[in-house]
């Protein structure tokens, strides 16, 4: 988890635990709160020095692409089961919401992307985010779930191709 997120992560999520993010850094694991603050300040200075260009490194962008593709694929599987009547509406609603929260977090990170591919990835993340949100509200509407399954599958495919080209 990047140090800045350590500060952000004290916010609460009402409907469930916060979505998983990247793994903790050494500073976060080893240090206590003062250490975290120092690490966060260092990160702010470092980011300020970058002048906003390339806020997400190529590696970070690639990892985000993998993450969003994973969420889209998992959403595809969930929507497919829901459309075939093989899931409960409660499980579909709650699990889709967990996926949607994680997609929203990725979308926010990708919004910092400066390159055309980064912007394209951000658009796809927004689409996945929106589809998952609709899936969580789809109840027992199998037709909508089938459409969302197809849309999420297309998005996962597009993200996978984009991720490979990064």
């Amino acid at each position, binding site marked *: 988890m990047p140090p800045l997120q350590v500060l952000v*992560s*004290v*916010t*609460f*999520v*009402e*409907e*469930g*635990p*916060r*979505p*998983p*993010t*990247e*793994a*903790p*850094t*050494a500073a976060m*694991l*080893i240090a206590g709160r003062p250490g975290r603050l120092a690490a966060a300040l260092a990160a702010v200075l470092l980011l300020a020095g970058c002048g906003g260009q390339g806020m997400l490194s190529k590696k970070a962008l690639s*990892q985000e692409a*993998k*993450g969003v*593709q*994973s969420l889209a*694929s*998992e959403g*595809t*599987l*969930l929507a*497919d*089961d829901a459309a075939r009547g*093989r*899931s*409960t509406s*409660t*499980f579909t*609603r*709650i*699990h889709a919401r*967990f*996926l949607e929260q*994680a997609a929203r977090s990725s979308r926010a990170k990708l919004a910092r992307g400066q390159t055309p591919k980064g912007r394209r990835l951000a658009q796809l993340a927004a689409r996945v985010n929106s589809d998952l949100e609709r899936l969580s509200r789809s109840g027992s509407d199998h037709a909508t779930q089938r459409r969302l399954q197809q849309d999420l599958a297309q998005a*996962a495919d597009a993200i*996978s191709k984009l991720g490979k080209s990064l």
Partner: protein
Amino acid sequence: MKQFLQIALGILSAIGGFVDIGDLVFNTQAGATFGFQLLWVVVVGVVGIIVYSEMCGRVAAISKRPVFDLVRERAGFGAGLGTLIASEVVNLMTCAAEVGGVAIVLQLLSGLPYRFLIGLGVVGIVVVSWVLPFEWLERLFGYVGLCLLVFAVAAVKVGPSWGQVAHGFVPGMHTGSHLVFLYFVVGLLGAALTPYEVYFYSSGAVEDAWGREDLRINKITSVIGYGLGAFLSFSLMILAAVLFLPRGINPQFLGTPALGAQDALGKIGLLLALVGILFAVGGAAIETSFSGAYNLAQFFGWQWGKRERPGGAPRFALTWIVIFALALAIVMTGYDPVKLTEYSVIFSVVALPLTFLPILLVANDPAYMGDSRNGRASNVLGVLYFVLILAISISAIPLLLLTNGGQG
């Protein structure tokens, strides 16, 4: 039938160790990342925990002394206190993660608000732990947790290539990043050899009043109980390798393994998976809170045990209730329970060697064990696994950091 009921201690200990909230996700991630390539690691891990659990069950049966009693005696007060602190932090963080897991599963079943379910889950577990005798806690959570066997059925249903599965039991690495692979190897071994499993198992053996006549049941319990835990790990990995790996899914949620069971078996698969996870995670919460209370009581020489009425062992009873209260406070912050278990790795590093070394020493000491001390095979395996435990302790944190928690 009697023997079937007696092995509940092993089943509950193993379910808490092999398929608690962190392991459910971690095993699924291992399969989704490396397919069948890590199956052999589970075999290595389960042999290690069987060797050490059999030893500490034998020590408890013969000397009537549980593990933490021995830790203080053999490691001395200072090192013992260090082990106590580290293990208490591991127990608390793991207990908090399990309580969060209980709330997540209840939410996936009921759709009610998460925070309400955290409170409800904790109250439910505390009441059940208070009311039920120890052997019924073992049986309830151990046997209902066996609903997790639905993952084995699902793993067969999705039709893996059994040749490739068999190949996964041969040590080696064929694809992917070496460091990430090593991270998963260490993680799976660490998950199999968690300290609270042996604290709970040995204290449970004393609670169950094992004696010399129970040495056979000790062997059966450790082999069948932990064998079942390993079997569930295999099932989760195989299911993930078939369903998630080809789709590029990196499981991060407690609901993802249940999604696998659902995809293979429909609603019944989903419900059995969720009930199994609920009882496994609930059982692990009890296991960790009791382990915390056992350790503290045994270290300071208090009266302890679930067999005692709370009035007979008030500090023991108060300790496990306080652990639940602290776990409730931690998980109420909204922090992801799955991530919480990753942090406990750091404290396990301290607790691991100082937990397992005293078991090995005492199990080999004729003054304590008489003619029931370790044989040659137990000693060879014990020493080999102790070296492995040291290696895990040294490499766990660097690998966690170098691989970005397995993300590469």
